[in-house]
């Protein structure tokens, strides 16, 4: 934790230094009319870096989507995340999908995580697919990709670069037993309902979501992976969403999602993990009053 907090200070200092350096460098270059030409060594390094990241994305893309075409989009999905995360094991991600009625599902991929496929969220008729928020672990400076699947079966992607590292292996700072206390407890909170508007809901599940990459510093054993691999949310007889998760989801998962206005019946959440844990809770949604 302290390490994660410490970084921004270091970073800010480095940032100020690099801005100063850039300004000092740029001034004489600008007068020479060459301000936009970076030094050859740096240019080569940066483009190698980009090429390498692109190659990795292509590899991941193939492993998840096979040969299906994925088109870049600025309008169907947007990824919001802090450019520099305070805590690499708790990086907040917001996926915005303005053309929500076209959206059937969204995939979240953290390119440089060793297990890059963080989540797949499929929306049902009970969902408002305009926005999803969740918190993830980020192992290294990485592109984060969101791939939207439209109702007519097309794929669209967008990406965002995030600076954080060490999130997958960061220990929770407590014993495994303590981290597992109350496992499966849930809360579902609702934003104030307004007539005819989607209702924003926040699901909180107590679960350590052990990544399998966290080492016990005393015994030097790895805590075995134990993570929520499925969350199914329904309202009455309608599916709201189904989330397939992975070790990249942060401990004690928190997921924000939208409910279609005018839904009826209790909201049921069923969460299961990779070690046959299964928890089911039912919640009453508020109804909008005029």
């Amino acid at each position, binding site marked *: 934790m*302290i*390490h994660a*907090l*410490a*970084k*921004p*200070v*270091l*970073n800010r200092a*480095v940032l100020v230094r*690099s801005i100063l350096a850039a300004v000092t460098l740029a001034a004489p270059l600008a007068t020479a009319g060459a301000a936009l030409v970076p030094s050859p060594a740096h240019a080569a*390094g*940066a483009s*190698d*870096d980009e090429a*390498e990241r692109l190659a*990795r994305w292509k*590899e*991941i893309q193939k*492993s*998840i989507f096979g040969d299906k075409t994925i088109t870049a989009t600025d309008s169907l999905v947007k990824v919001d995340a802090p450019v520099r995360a305070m805590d690499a094991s708790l990086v907040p991600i917001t996926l915005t999908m303005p053309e929500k009625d076209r959206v059937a599902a969204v995939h979240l991929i953290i390119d*440089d995580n*060793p*297990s*890059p*496929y963080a989540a797949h969220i499929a929306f049902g008729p009970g969902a408002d697919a305009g926005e999803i928020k969740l918190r993830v672990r980020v*192992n*290294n*400076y990485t592109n984060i990709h969101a791939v939207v699947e439209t109702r007519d079966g097309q794929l669209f992607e967008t990406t965002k670069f995030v600076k954080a*590292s*060490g999130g*997958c*292996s960061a*220990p929770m700072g407590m014993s495994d037993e303590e981290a597992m206390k109350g496992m499966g407890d849930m809360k579902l909170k609702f934003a104030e309902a307004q007539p005819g508007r989607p209702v924003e809901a926040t699901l909180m599940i107590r679960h350590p979501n052990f*990544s*399998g*990459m966290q*080492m016990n*510093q*005393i015994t*030097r054993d*790895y805590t*075995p*992976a*134990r993570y929520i*691999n499925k969350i199914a949310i329904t309202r009455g007889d309608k599916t709201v969403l189904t989330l397939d998760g*992975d*070790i990249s989801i942060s401990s004690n998962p928190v997921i924000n999602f939208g409910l279609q206005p005018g839904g009826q019946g209790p909201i049921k959440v069923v969460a299961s993990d*990779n*070690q046959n844990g299964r928890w089911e809770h039912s919640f009453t949604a508020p109804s909008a009053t005029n």
Partner: protein
Amino acid sequence: MRRRLLRIAAAGTALLLLAAAGPADSPVNVPEPDGIWTGPQRGYTPATLSGATVIDIDALDALIARDRPVLLDVSLADRRPAGLPADRPWLPAHRSVPGAVWMANAGAAPLDPAHEALFLKRVADLTGGDKGRAVVAFCHPECWGSWNAAKRLVLQGYTRVHWFPEGIEGWQERHPTTVIPEDSAWTALANGEAQR
């Protein structure tokens, strides 16, 4: 009440930020161990390493430009978690300082004799047997592995050992990283063990 809590949290955060401004400025003063550190490998590290030079990114940049040092990355490798389904893509990629030689966990303590001997042999190869050649050991912030790796070389009589505690995180603040494979001799030893 909530605002007060927030204020307390903010103050706490500010304190932590002040206290932990850099890897060399641990909030607690960690004394150098007597020889190799055998305690938990992750945690606050000392600000010094006797017999070696502790360097920041500026000093590393200067050293690379001037002396083409041997760069030794001793970070742990990502291990596939037990219980991860076979159909999940598992694509670990180790990003590091371009040109570095990666011997995963070579800073471990205790290190079995075969690995210790191979580590020293690889460094001897990489330095061309010149114990006066500049060497830099690194991994991540708050990682004892690189401290230990540097210490091992000091104890072997290397005279220009450098420890870069900011590690890969410090490097990637300023420069691109690149995906590097593990040193092949190092991997071969690990694979040989697995077959036994």
